[in-house]
């Protein structure tokens, strides 16, 4: 097993871990964190796969992608936190309502 | 002449544009609306007369617009189209007068007259459609534009009736759409041609053609109220009287029957259809419809509902005549398209007058109405007798040709159907006449004026027209002569 593959597999592991938490956790902050863990997984995959060529010269493109991805993730997390605070201020709760009792305002 | 090819479009636009403009008029501008309505109606009659004159001399009007790959929109004036457009133009004019009188002072008239005009435009489109695709488009447009007229009163009953109407007609539309699309994938063309365009298909496709035929006929049969697809019509009686008149005599029901004629003549071709063995079941269905709905009419006490079941029955004469697959019965069927229209619209106008002026809706309450409203009841009596088939009124001509045609095509049992139906017609019309003329009124009623002029004259005129159509049937330009002209295309030019 090469180091590259190890990194890639770790990345996919993080992705799955995040996905699991996203589904299982009901606290919204946990969900946002889960999303962040997932993005880290994807970035790890991208970065590790950059070493595609056996000679070891590194492909710069995935790095550019990772940087873009991080920017997007930061923005998304900020938006998520802002909405989270609003929800907390309005309802005093930090979880999503069940499918049954939504939209009864 | 190429320059006149847009004339069919113009016929369509007279009612389409006037309808759209009427929507924008404020409720209070009665004068503008009335002027516009009558102007459009008169110019339509004028246009159609002009075209009839030229078609008799061999002119051919067609306009073709490229629409989709392999599909054109075609509007044309062939003799069959003229028969229907002519009928709708004349009856639109009379109904417009009537509706102006009937709805005087009631709310939402801009909406009413707008949809009324659109409905007529859709009918003209159905009549002039030059291929099945164009037919489908206008047929569905008619479904949609008639809905606001049926629910016009805005009551809960109206909403329910509208719902029933939609369940039937939208369902029928889907069947028609399926049949049309299927046929197009088989043939690659949908243009109406004399003697049909499907007979060149290889014989292994014939089972598919039969299924398509069933789909198409069920699709148009909903509007043509073939039993058991007739259920919406009696319910739709909650609509105002001019709407009922329009639905029965001109627009919706007739569009359905007209569709049956088109499918039989210009899609399948009557000989090919007969060879496929699909005309006989249609004939039987029409016969069942005639008898069944006449029986149902007997038990109705509500005048408009009795008339509705009578429509279901009378309209099937047309289907029967065409399905008999012989030239003479075809003349009988086609001429009934016009004759039934003239007579039935009179009956509905009269029913509307009685309801509007005296507040009477039930037959049992009609005692002595003849003395109170002599002209209305005379018109009613004349056309009711016509419906029964008393000579020399128009209905007699239709029945005569149907009977002769049945003998000619070797279906003598149809004569039996006609006799039974005539007896039933008499059984449900004559008691009305007796009650109205000879029973003593329950209460003393005030004398003249009978009703307003706008309500009185339209039925009188249409009644006279149906008398004239019967009396002068042999002269040129009468419906009968025109039906002969059409039939000569389908049967004699081969």
């Amino acid at each position, binding site marked *: 097993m090469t180091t590259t593959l190890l990194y890639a597999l770790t990345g996919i592991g993080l*992705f799955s871990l995040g996905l699991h938490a*996203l589904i299982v956790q009901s606290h*919204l902050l946990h*969900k946002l964190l889960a*999303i962040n863990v997932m*993005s880290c997984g*994807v970035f790890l*995959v*991208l970065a590790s*796969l950059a070493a*595609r060529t056996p000679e070891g010269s590194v*492909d*710069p*493109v*995935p790095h*550019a*992608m990772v940087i*873009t*991805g991080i920017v*997007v993730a930061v923005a*998304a997390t900020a*938006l*998520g936190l802002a*909405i*989270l605070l*609003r*929800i907390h201020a*309005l*309802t005093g709760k930090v979880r*999503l*309502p069940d*499918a049954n009792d*939504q*939209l*009864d*305002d | 002449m190429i320059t006149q090819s847009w004339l069919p479009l113009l016929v369509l636009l007279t009612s389409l544009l006037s309808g759209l403009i009427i929507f924008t008029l404020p409720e209070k501008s009665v004068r503008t609306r009335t002027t516009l309505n009558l102007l459009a109606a008169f110019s339509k009659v004028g246009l159609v007369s002009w075209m009839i004159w030229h078609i008799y001399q061999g002119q051919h009007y067609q306009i073709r*617009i*490229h*629409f*989709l*790959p392999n599909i054109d929109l075609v509007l044309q004036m062939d003799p069959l189209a003229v028969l229907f457009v002519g009928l709708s133009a004349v009856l639109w004019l009379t109904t417009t007068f009537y509706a102006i009188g009937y709805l005087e002072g009631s709310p939402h008239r801009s909406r009413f007259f707008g949809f009324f005009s659109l409905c007529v435009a859709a009918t003209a489109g159905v009549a002039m459609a030059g291929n099945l695709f164009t037919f489908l*488009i206008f047929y*569905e447009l008619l479904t*949609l534009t008639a809905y*606001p007229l049926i*629910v016009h009163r*805005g009551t*809960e009953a*109206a*909403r329910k009736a*509208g*719902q029933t109407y*939609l369940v039937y007609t939208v369902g029928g*539309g*889907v069947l028609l*759409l*399926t049949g049309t*699309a*299927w046929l197009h*994938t088989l043939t690659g063309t949908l243009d109406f041609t004399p003697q049909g365009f499907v007979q060149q298909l290889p014989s292994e496709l014939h089972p598919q053609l039969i299924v398509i035929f069933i789909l198409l006929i069920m699709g148009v049969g909903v509007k043509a109220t073939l039993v058991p697809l007739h259920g919406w019509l009696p319910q739709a009686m909650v609509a105002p009287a001019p709407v009922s008149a329009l639905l029965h005599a001109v627009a919706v029901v007739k569009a359905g029957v007209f569709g049956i004629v088109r499918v039989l003549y210009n899609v399948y071709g009557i000989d090919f259809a007969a060879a496929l063995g699909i005309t006989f079941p249609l004939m039987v269905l029409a016969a069942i419809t005639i008898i069944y709905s006449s029986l149902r009419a007997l038990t109705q006490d509500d005048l408009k509902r009795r008339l509705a079941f009578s429509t279901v029955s009378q309209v099937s004469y047309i289907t029967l005549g065409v399905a008999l697959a012989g030239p003479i019965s075809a003349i009988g069927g086609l001429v009934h398209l016009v004759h039934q229209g003239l007579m039935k619209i009179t009956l509905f106008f009269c029913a509307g007058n009685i309801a509007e002026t005296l507040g009477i809706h039930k037959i049992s309450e009609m005692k002595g109405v003849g003395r109170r409203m002599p002209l209305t009841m005379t018109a009613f009596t004349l056309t009711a007798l016509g419906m029964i088939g008393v000579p020399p009124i128009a209905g007699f001509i239709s029945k005569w040709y149907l009977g002769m045609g049945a003998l000619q095509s070797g279906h003598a049992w149809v004569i039996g159907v006609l006799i039974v139906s005539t007896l039933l017609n008499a059984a449900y019309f004559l008691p009305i006449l007796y009650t109205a003329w000879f029973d003593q009124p329950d209460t003393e009623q005030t004398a003249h004026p009978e009703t307003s002029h706008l309500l009185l004259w339209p039925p009188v005129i249409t009644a006279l027209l149906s008398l004239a159509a019967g009396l002068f049937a042999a002269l040129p330009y009468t419906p009968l002569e025109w039906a002969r002209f059409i039939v000569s295309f389908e049967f004699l030019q081969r």
Partner: protein
Amino acid sequence: MTPPDLGIALVILPLTGALLAFLIHPHARWIGISTALAINIVLAWLLTDLVTSPQSYHYALGSWGAPLGIELHLDGLSAFMLMMSAVTGSGVSLYAFTCFRMQSTENDHSPAFWPLWLFLWTGINALFLSADIFNLYVTLELIGLAAVALTALAGSRAALTSAMRYLLISLLGSLCYLLGVALLYHTYATVDLTLLAGRITAQPATQAALALITVGLLLKSALFPLHFWLPPAHGSAAAPVSALLSALVVKASFYLLLRLWLELFHPIHNLMPDLLGILGAAAIIWGSLQALRQIRLKLLIAYSTVAQLGYFFLVFPLTAGQSGEMSSSAWQGVLYMLLAHALAKSAMFLAAGNIQLFGGHDRIIELDHIAQRLPLTLAAFSLAGISIMGLPPSGGFIGKWLLLEVAIAQGRWGYAMIILLGGLLAAGYIFKVIGYAFTQGQMEDSISETHPVPTVMQWAALALASGSILLGWYPAPLLELLAIGDPFHFLHPSP
């Protein structure tokens, strides 16, 4: 200017507008409406150019080619989609121009609408023009974030929670997509769509990428059974926002799915298209049945979107393994339906917004003579409804006819039946609304206090709805536009 330059202008204009509207927010609505106007002018110019010299354009931004630079791709399909966003966007902008001014006294979030909406417009236009799958990821995220923020704008509890759910789903979808992109890039060393199309083969990594990308985009375009987030989000947002979400946002990810499948994935997978088709069919039935059950108008419209999205997914089975005219007919039919739906659905949401403003609620059985009281609005709803039902003459009918013919010609009766059944069900839920709008409400004074609805807002809805009807009168030029540059190479298959 060449068409690609004009295309770039279509991205830069809304972006500049967004920044300006953010900086000078007292005048945001004027900036917004003039941006919309400018976009329309540029688009008209672009369309004229494209029609006079019909071909597809490939353009490297600043002469930096892939993989590091950004490449643009412009053909009939992208122009068609740009037109969809421009026309719908303008109608909604006109509505919002008046709508948010009225509410600004009580709701101070409304100034945020314009920068967000223009930002969303930037993302949508950029997505339609992008030619590489990573760039598409970025545009997808722009759209997702802007859409979530717009949803939250309504400020109510329902709006915030559904925005949150929407955000999580949207991010999950994007991450799946990005992981798929990583795998594709690893295997083929390119993100350019055209190059990928030439190199792609059926190997495990590609199949995994395909699955990830498809699932990610299905989440975003709310295909049944991944639609659960859509009705609450579209049902609780402000009217113009709902209109934008239903008309444009879900279409963007569907467009991406269409591009990817028809250009890349069709040759290497033959089970998935039918799966997508079956899910689409299920969406049509389920969405319509849910719509029939709804008691609130906006939710009914939102479920109708779920159902209509199902129609679009029929394109995958109907083009799979086919070539030539049949496939062209199928995808063009779906695209036509897409455009008609964009116009009709935005009109419906705007009409619902008017009704809510007028009577203070949108409960269907208490619509109480809306037909008489708000005739323009009900006309807008009904006309849009005709297109949604797919009855002639309307854009929806044209799309449906093309699809139906393909289904019948291929002997796929199941799909044909679903197409027809969906129309019937749609007629059911739309006429339910119209029926109640014509009649007296069930309860006394169900609309007691009424607010006047500005004419502009009524006309904006009516204009969009009329557009969806007019599409049905003369479809030939638009179908020709779609075929420019022969997207997906169905007409002239490459050797």
